[in-house]
């Protein structure tokens, strides 16, 4: 009886001491995620990105400029190749518009099209529009921490909150201790991995560690992937408010 009680006390003491220490080493899952997204997008960002779309039969190279404001607004304008240059996508809150220079028309995207491929890539319009939904529509759990390349890498599992308007069964993420997103795997409703985004290269951009090269691959279609390489990015710069307007979408200043 006495031995058992002392063991219990010892365990309790150990937990009391180790608890705060563990919390210090690994903040809670939501904080990690929020910091990773802050690192990725900040309050505002402006970046130049090269996008490669790979298919078994062909490969396309596009160049684009992207601006983000807060968590919800984004503007992407393609600059190359000539065939696609001028095309742009604007996202404000939950609404998305597409501008096509050949038609000289702005088209508001119907909600039913949001899961369709964006510009023929392996990203969907949803990826553009809901990029921060992982923070708001999911609950997060820290699954573990591992050491890799001199860094601690946290594994976080995000499961949709009840009633959240999401298509995935769950999302699992790997985030480095300097808040660089290393991997993001999307599971379908049957909990089978459906697609995965991996960070191929981490580099310094505007003085911060950044996932410079990221590749999205649908796991059920081998030979297809889309890679984005961030060439240059600036963070937290003041962006003019006319940037995120329909008139700027159609007639860029």
């Amino acid at each position, binding site marked *: 009886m006495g031995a058992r009680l002392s063991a219990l006390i010892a365990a309790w003491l150990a937990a009391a001491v180790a608890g705060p220490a563990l919390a210090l080493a690994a903040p809670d899952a939501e904080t990690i995620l929020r910091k990773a997204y802050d690192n990725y997008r900040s309050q505002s960002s402006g970046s130049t990105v090269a996008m490669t*779309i790979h*298919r078994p*039969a*062909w490969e*396309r190279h596009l160049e684009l400029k992207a601006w983000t404001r807060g968590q919800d607004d984004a503007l992407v304008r393609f600059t190359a190749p000539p*065939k*696609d240059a001028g*095309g742009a996508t604007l996202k404000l809150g939950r609404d998305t518009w*597409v501008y*096509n220079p*050949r*038609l000289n*028309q702005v*088209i*508001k*995207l*119907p909600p*039913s*099209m949001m899961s*369709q*491929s964006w*510009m*023929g*890539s392996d990203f969907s319009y949803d990826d553009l529009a809901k990029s921060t939904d992982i923070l708001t529509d999911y609950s997060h759990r820290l699954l573990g921490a591992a050491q890799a390349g001199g860094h601690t890498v946290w594994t976080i599992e995000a499961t949709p909150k009840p009633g959240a308007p999401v298509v995935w069964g769950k999302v699992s993420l790997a985030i480095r201790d300097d808040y660089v997103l290393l991997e993001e795997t999307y599971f379908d409703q049957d909990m089978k991995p459906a697609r995965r985004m991996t960070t191929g290269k981490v580099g310094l951009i505007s003085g911060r560690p950044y996932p410079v090269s990221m590749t999205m691959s649908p796991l059920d279609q081998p030979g297809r992937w889309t890679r984005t390489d961030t060439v240059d990015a600036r963070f937290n710069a003041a962006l003019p408010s006319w940037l995120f307007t329909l008139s700027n979408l159609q007639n860029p200043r």
Partner: protein
Amino acid sequence: MLVALAWRNLWRRSQRTVLSLISIALVTALLVFMLSFQEGVYGVLKEATLRIFDGYAQLQPPGWADDPTLDRVIDHPGALARQAEGLRGVSAAAPRVNAFAILAHGARSYGAAVVGVDPARERRVSSIASMIRTGRYLATGDSDAAVLGETLARNLDLAVGGEVTVLGEARDGSVAADVLHVVGLYHSGVPELDRSILEMPLARAQDAFGMEGAANTIAVGGPSLAAVDHAVPVLRTLGHRAGVSVRDWAALEPALREGIDLKYAIAMMFYATLVVVVAFIILNTLLMSVLERTREFGMLLALGMRPGRIGAMVWIELLGLALLGCLFGLVLGGGATLWLQRQGVVVPIDPRLLAQFALPARLYPTLTPLSALFGPMSLLAAIIVGGVVPYLRVAGLTPALAMRVP
């Protein structure tokens, strides 16, 4: 001699025999008509459903069934279509581009299937051309023309003469964009089609979606579904050489096939019950007549007739009754079916409801060897097999006991 005896016996109680004959004949006639009617209705249902859009069969690139993406193509659709049209049982083969795009008009936009079609061939494969409510169908020589379903047009707030913007992804992954003029609106009665399909000229679609002359599918039409079904093996050989696969109607509309199979199975259960019940009624009647004649049979046995012969006589009575009844029924049911096959049966259902399932207001039964003979044959078989009971009863008689029956 047995046959003559049996025949005489039947007419000793003519009222009972006539009643038995009538019940066999009526059930047989009913079975003949019901089966023919089912055959006819399902035939119409299949053809009507397939003719709206699918076609009676389709040539498709490998893998299209599981993953219909624009980059799965048939490279020389024109040549393959011409070859298919040369086959017996195939009257038209229509190449199509099957793309998916955003359609926009003003502030409205919807996702829809954009199908590039060859108007002249398409109207021989799909009945959308005949379902135009306003305006006209596409014509050879059209360029920036489009027809779309009424519901889709309403959703986009579009009318004939309006401009619709098409924005999608081309075969090479680049942006496909085009502006078309609406020339007609169709109403197929199938809600999914009416709200989700826009048709445009094939060449223009090939151009807009970067198809480089290729198509995604070739829809096959013919004088009848049966004719095309018959041509499917040859189509497969043809397709195999061109590296494309062939899907027959059942593969194109698996739900339709399963629905029809299920309906047949349920109907068969009903028919089987009918056959069994009637067989029992007839057997019961005969058994009664056997019991009535026990003394008579005892007499025959005493005179030296073997029990087996008497049993055979009773069986022949039954056989004669069944054959005669089935024959009458076949003539009655077959005649009525043939007559209705020409007249049509007006179904007491709102024609608008029928139109939604692509069914005409008048339905026609189809008398086939199977539908004509299945009912009579199964009834005959049931009665003959059931005849074992009276046979055994008679065969077990002994003269002394039989003659003592009051």
